[in-house]
Structure formats: structure tokens, C-alpha cells
């Protein structure tokens, strides 16, 4: 009998030859994130905005989205799963959202007003079976006035706030829609003998390992702490954002040098935040370094507590005039933007402040002299900083640079260097708390994507600690009125105009020393095409292609 093996071998070889071209053409994009773990995949990511960037926006949609398609204009709000929205003219705590039809979750179930109500209840209603405490922190705090949702019909939903709040549509970019039907299947699979809360927790854990959103990518493989693999959602409702790559692989790599080495060795195609001193080597090897203005402010936040040296506006403005930001830009190898305020000129909220933030040590010294300070009698300031931390860029060399810069304008700067998480916790406690350790300024970078995050929480008398992050207790009736005007301006243009007035006054009053804006550098292989880095914390992975 003829041995079958040679024939089998030939067939196997033929199959391999046929398969190999197909395999070789699989377009896989491998991204190394700075996070130490895969951001949570159950719809409300953790790990800050890097979580939203990689396991929020690619896998899920929200009612409203940020426009991530332009690199040369501010990122503004656009419709997501909601086609339109309007506040009730008679009762401005009620908003009506018209939803997008024919949208399906990855599991095939339909998106509808019921799904919106379900998702609102998952973080706001403790009695809801799907309520998840672990998602509350990252969601509720970003939409502080939302209270409830009510279905009007299958494609219309009413959202209710605790007070009139024109910021709600912007806040809703953070509330991603998870599939209620898919979650229910996970819930039904849990042991009925468990208490309801434990069943819900187990259901969310199972959901996170096998997630279902409506986004352009769907989960195909999840290995905790190691990798997340996503495949295109070919039935995505926006043809312009239906992915053209075959697979997206997300890898946590918290160490900058390790990420850089992974890129240079070809193990990954894209790294977030490359090691700053490796930019030259990365570009020399043919990779592209992308960066752009980002709503990411790196400041000193000043204390207005009794006895603070910053109570004198001349001192605050002098500090802003005495930071050599161009020199700092050089120190960081070009990886920062020079700030003129919280938002840049040209932004809808810019407002043309009368105080021009620039490097003018002579003007600074003049102000300091008027305030009674000199080289022989410098003002003593103490700043609480961290040694590292997410979004903190290079805190030690940057702060030391600023210290040297300010020395020339009669500032004697001392630092209280503490661990990042501790600094974060202290930030919430305020300048008057013992945790401030005598500091009258604090260096915590922040996202400036929406008005509350960018401005309101730092300047309103209603956001003094422990309510929110007005660490320095800055605020007055005038600023509160500007905040209220913005909150009650329900027309987009009117709201932006009101926010512009607020921003202008904030810059003039200088409750911050604006030092740098981060530019979100990332290094990407040349074969990855279609990369648009918008002026945002986020980036759209859906339109990318690989050559």
C-alpha cells in the first residue's frame, strides 16, 4: 500500500503556501500603552484618560463624542449615539436626546432608549440590579449634575439634572453605552444562591472579559495584565469609522525605556510617551513622532489661604512673567506647548485676556518691587510636587527649572516632594489641610477637555475642598456669576462666549502659574497611515490603515 505520508506532506505544504500569503497580509496594529494593566473593558475605563483612549472610544460609543478628525482645530462636540439634543425651554433641568436608529451592540442586540436608561442607572441608581460601585467614581464625578434618565420612546430619552447645567452634553462623552442584553446573560449565568450585589459584581467581571459595546472595535481576546485584542466591528454605524485594519493589540508597558525598546525591536508598531531622550534615535530609525497641543495643563495651583504669599496679584502675575518657557521647551526636547492660559488663543473659550502670559523678567521684577520684594528680600514659596506620576511629564527637572527661572525675579522656591498618589489625595484635601505641609502651591497636571474640568472646579466657591479640586480656595462672587452664566447658557455659541469671559478673567487673576501644556507624544511606525493626532487627550484608532 502506498504510504500516505508523502502525499499528506505535499498537501500540508501546499496548504501552508496558500495560507502564508493570507497570514502575511493580516494587518495587525500593536500598541504599547503606558498603563500597567489593561484599562477596564466593561464600559467605564480606569487608568485615567488613557483608559478612555484605548478601551473606551474604540469599543464603545457615548451619546456625544469628541471630534477627533482634525489636527489643526480644537476638538469639539459632535453627535454620537444621539443625533440631537435640546434642553426643555420651560424646565432647564430636563434634556431630550434623539437617538441614532439601527445601531447594534457587538452581541447583536439593539441600542435604544432602554439601553441609555440602563447605563445611566448602572452608576446612579444603587437599587438597579446592574449598579456597579466600581464604575461610579470614574463616571459620576465627570457628570456631577446628572440625576436620572427616562425613556420617552424607543429612540428618545430624557435626562434630568439636579440644576440647570449647559455642560451636560460635554460630560456625556464620558458615559459609554454597554450592552444591557449581554450583561444580563452574564448575570443569569451566575449562581442564583449568591446575594444580588455579588451576582452583579460577578456579572460585570464576566462582562469585562467578554465585553459588548457598539464601538468600531469588538473584543476578541482578553488576557488580564498582558494583552487585549480587538477586531473590527464590520457592522459599525459610521462607515467612515469602520476599521480597515484586521486586528488591534493593546499591550501594557509602564516603563518608558521598555516601550521604546519594544518599538525599536519591531515588537510593537506604536508606543505612547516614548522615552524623551530617545526621540532622536526613534526618528533616525524611520519611526514618526506625533505630538500636538493637548488640553493638558501643567501648572502650579496657588493657595489663597490666609498668609499665602500668592494673595498679592502682582506676585502671581510676576511668577507668570518670570518662567522661561522657551528654555523649558528646549529642556524637554520640544515636547511641550507654551501656554498662554488654560486654553490656547483661537480656542472657543479663549476670551482675549488682558494679561499676556509671556517671559518678561523685567516686567516681573517691576511687579515684585511694587509688591515690596527684592533680591535681598525674596518671597518664600513652597510647592508640593511629585517625583513622577501619570500626566506629570518630568516633574523633577521641570520644577527645578522653574525654581531657577523664578530665582531671578526674587522668588525663593522650596519643594515638598511626595509620592504621586499621595499628592493626588492631598489635592482633594486642600491648601488648609495639614497634608499640604505648609505648601502654598501644588503641582498637579489636569485635563482641560470640558468646562468643569478645565476651569469651574478650580475657581468656584462651590468647589472648595473637599467638594472638588479648588485646592487653593480661589473664588469670589464675580467668578461665581461667570460660572453660573456659562452653566445657564444653553446655546452652544452663548455657552462658549460665557466660558470665554470666564477664562479671560481667570487668566487675569492668575490663580495658577501656567508653566507648560503637554503635547501627548507618541512614536509610530511609518507603515501606519491615516494617523491624525487631534488637540485632544484622545485619538481615533478606527480610520488607521497599515501598508
Amino acid at each position: 500500500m502506498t504510504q500516505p505520508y508523502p502525499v499528506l506532506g505535499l498537501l500540508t505544504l501546499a496548504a501552508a503556501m496558500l495560507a502564508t500569503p493570507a497570514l502575511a497580509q493580516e494587518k495587525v496594529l500593536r500598541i504599547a500603552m503606558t498603563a500597567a494593566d489593561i484599562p477596564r473593558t466593561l464600559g467605564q475605563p480606569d487608568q485615567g484618560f488613557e483608559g478612555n483612549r484605548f478601551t473606551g472610544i474604540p469599543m464603545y460609543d457615548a451619546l456625544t463624542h469628541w471630534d477627533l478628525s482634525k489636527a489643526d482645530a480644537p476638538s469639539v462636540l459632535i453627535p454620537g449615539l444621539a443625533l440631537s439634543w435640546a434642553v426643555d425651554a420651560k424646565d432647564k433641568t430636563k434634556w431630550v436626546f434623539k437617538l441614532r436608529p439601527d445601531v447594534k451592540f457587538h452581541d447583536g442586540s439593539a441600542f435604544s432608549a432602554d439601553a441609555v436608561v440602563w447605563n445611566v442607572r448602572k452608576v446612579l441608581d444603587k437599587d438597579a440590579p446592574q449598579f456597579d460601585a466600581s464604575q461610579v467614581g470614574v463616571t459620576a464625578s465627570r457628570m456631577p449634575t446628572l440625576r436620572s434618565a427616562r425613556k420617552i420612546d424607543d429612540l428618545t430619552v430624557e435626562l434630568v439634572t439636579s440644576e440647570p447645567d449647559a455642560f451636560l452634553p460635554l460630560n456625556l462623552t464620558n458615559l459609554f453605552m454597554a450592552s444591557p442584553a449581554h450583561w444580563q446573560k452574564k448575570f443569569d449565568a451566575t449562581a442564583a444562591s449568591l446575594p444580588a450585589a455579588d451576582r452583579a459584581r460577578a456579572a460585570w467581571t464576566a462582562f469585562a472579559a467578554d465585553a459588548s459595546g457598539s464601538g468600531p472595535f469588538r473584543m476578541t481576546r482578553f488576557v488580564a495584565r498582558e494583552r487585549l485584542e480587538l477586531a473590527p466591528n464590520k457592522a459599525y454605524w459610521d462607515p467612515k469609522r469602520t476599521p480597515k485594519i484586521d486586528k488591534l493589540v493593546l499591550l501594557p508597558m509602564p516603563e518608558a525605556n521598555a516601550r521604546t525598546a519594544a518599538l525599536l525591536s519591531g515588537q510593537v508598531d506604536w508606543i505612547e510617551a516614548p522615552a524623551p531622550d530617545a526621540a532622536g534615535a526613534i526618528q533616525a530609525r524611520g519611526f514618526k513622532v506625533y505630538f500636538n497641543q493637548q488640553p493638558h495643563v501643567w501648572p502650579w495651583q496657588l493657595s489663597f489661604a490666609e498668609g499665602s504669599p500668592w494673595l498679592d496679584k502682582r506676585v502671581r502675575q510676576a511668577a507668570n512673567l518670570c518662567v522661561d518657557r522657551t528654555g523649558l521647551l528646549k529642556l524637554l526636547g520640544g515636547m511641550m506647548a507654551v501656554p498662554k492660559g488654560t486654553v490656547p488663543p483661537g480656542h472657543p473659550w479663549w476670551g482675549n485676556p488682558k494679561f499676556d502670559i509671556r517671559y518678561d523678567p523685567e516686567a516681573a521684577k517691576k511687579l515684585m518691587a511694587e509688591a515690596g520684594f527684592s533680591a535681598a528680600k525674596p518671597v518664600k514659596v513652597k510647592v508640593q510636587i511629585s517625583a513622577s506620576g501619570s500626566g506629570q511629564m518630568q516633574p523633577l527637572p521641570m520644577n527645578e527649572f522653574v525654581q531657577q527661572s523664578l530665582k531671578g525675579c526674587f522668588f525663593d522656591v522650596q519643594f515638598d516632594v511626595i509620592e504621586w498618589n499621595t499628592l493626588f489625595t492631598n489635592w482633594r484635601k486642600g491648601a488648609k489641610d495639614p497634608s499640604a505641609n505648609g505648601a502654598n502651591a501644588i503641582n498637579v497636571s489636569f485635563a482641560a477637555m470640558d468646562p468643569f474640568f478645565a476651569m469651574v472646579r478650580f475657581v468656584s466657591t462651590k468647589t472648595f475642598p473637599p467638594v472638588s479640586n479648588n485646592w487653593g480656595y480661589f473664588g469670589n462672587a464675580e467668578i461665581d456669576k461667570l460660572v453660573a452664566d456659562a452653566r445657564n447658557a444653553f446655546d452652544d455659541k452663548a455657552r462658549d462666549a460665557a466660558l470665554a469671559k470666564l477664562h479671560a478673567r481667570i487668566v487675569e487673576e492668575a490663580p495658577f502659574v501656567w508653566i507648560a501644556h503637554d503635547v501627548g507624544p507618541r512614536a509610530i511606525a511609518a507603515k501606519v497611515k491615516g494617523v491624525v493626532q487631534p488637540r485632544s487627550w484622545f485619538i481615533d484608532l478606527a480610520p488607521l490603515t497599515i501598508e
Partner: protein
Amino acid sequence: MLAYLLRRIGYALPIMVGVALVCFSLVHLAPGDPLVSILPPDASAELAAQLKTLYGFDRSYPEQFVAWSWRALHGDLGQSIASGRPVAPEVLTAVGNTLRLALLATLIGFAAGGLFGFVAGYFQRSWPDRLASLLGVLGVSVPHYWLGMVMVIVFSALLGWLPATGAGPDGAGNWAWDWAHFQYLVLPALTMSVIPMGIIARTLRALVAEILAQEFIVGLKAKGLTDLGIFCHVVKNAAPTALAVMGLQLGYLLGGSILIETVFSWPGTGFLLNSAIFQRDLPLLQGTILVLALFFVVLNLLVDVLQTLLDPRIARR
């Protein structure tokens, strides 16, 4: 012997209770908010208080300790606050990954350390001694995470011979003992082996030199014993002390290296601890430290027993 064993096991039990108490206390003594991973800084005080109650952090420390210990006795180390996943399976998976790395690092470190130590001890004050000693000193002096980064730059980024990071082409889960997977072990294992190699080399050098200087060696030579026979005597005499050192080094390796595993993104206990520390994920931190500490206690128990078997002169009262 049996009495000694039972006594040793008896000592280990209160040690384990003490370890659990220390693990719990140390973690709670550190400043910072245990809910920081799920509570952004702009969260209201009301929200923070609500979550504190939901997660049980509003209870007193003794209450929390008793609840945690009771669950731990039943194999439940709680749930990670950051990820929501049960801690015990995560820790055990990480232990498995670290074990794989640590065992290879142990083999390399002990073999190289043993070789250098014996060579240096036998050929004192000659060039093999100086070379072996230099390698041993470098092993304990060079920061191993720096060495790891240099090796990655050379062997991955520049030469492209080995992968820079990760625990396999597909992650650690689908491990196979083939080159496609083994190549991911090489650089981290070599890096991890450097410190134990240096310590063992220096310890053995001193031990061997001391033993060779003893009178009984002269006696053995006078009796006409071959070099190999003398070598066996030297090994047997050096073994108890060397074993103690090796046992400690093995314990450290099995505990995982936070720095090495972070540099190489190796999903072991060190990587897990790093993540838990930065996220203030108390359940994960407590669970990981407890498992590693208990492992250490058991390992020391085994080393003590082995030492007694190897050297009957060791009297334990």
C-alpha cells in the same frame, strides 16, 4: 528528627499569623487613599464616603483584619479594587509566571555562581580567582534593572536577536517550551540571575578557601585521596552554608523582582506588586504580599530541614 520537624512546623504557624498581621498593617499604614484607582481627584466628598462604605473601608482596622483573615483562610483574598477581578487567581497566575522566570534565573545564577565561587576558591590569588571574583563583584554591584535595559538595547533594539518585552508571542497564558516562547525568557532570566550569581560566587569563594585551609584537607591529601575525592569533601562541607544562602536567594527570586518584571513587562508577582502599589489597590497588595511571605516561610522551613539532613552536626534544641 520527627520531633524537630514537628517543632519547626509548630513555629511556622505563629510566624504565618504574624506575617498576615504585618502584611495587613503595613499596607494600611502607607498614606494615600485606597480608592484612588476608582475615585478621580475631582470626585466629591460625598461620593468618596459612599464608596468607602461600599468597599468596607469605613470599618475599624481590627474588623477589617478579622474579615480579611477569615476570607483568606478559605482561599478568598478578596477582589481587586482597580480591576474588579478576584485576587487569588491573579496572584496564583502571577506566581506561576514568576516561577518560570525564577527557576531559569536560579539555574543560571546558581550554576554560574557555583562555578565562579569554586574556581575562585580553588585558584586563590591567581588570574582565574581575580576574574571570577570580578564577575562576582559586578554581579552584586551593577544595578540589575540598568543591566536589563542595556541588554534590551543591545540584544533587542540594536541586534534584533531577542524580544524586548513580554512573556511570549501570545502572552504568558499559552506557554510552550519551544524557542518561540523561550526567547522571551532569556534576557529577563539572565538579568535576574546576576545578583544571586554574585552573592553565591562570593560566598562560595570564601567558604571554599576556608575549607581548603583546614587541617583535615591536609590529612586527606596525606592519605592519598584524589583531587576529585577532596573536591567532594569540600562540596559536602560547604553545602549547608551554601544551601542557606541559595535558599534565601531562591526565596527572593520567587518573590519576583518589581524592577526586572516592569522593565520586561513580565506578568509575574513583581509586575503585579508594582501595579498594586501605584494604584493603591489594597486587596491586591495584601493578597500578593501574603502569598509571597507565606511562600518564603515554607521555603525557609524546607531549607532548615534539608540542612539538618545534610549536616547531622547541626543540633536544634
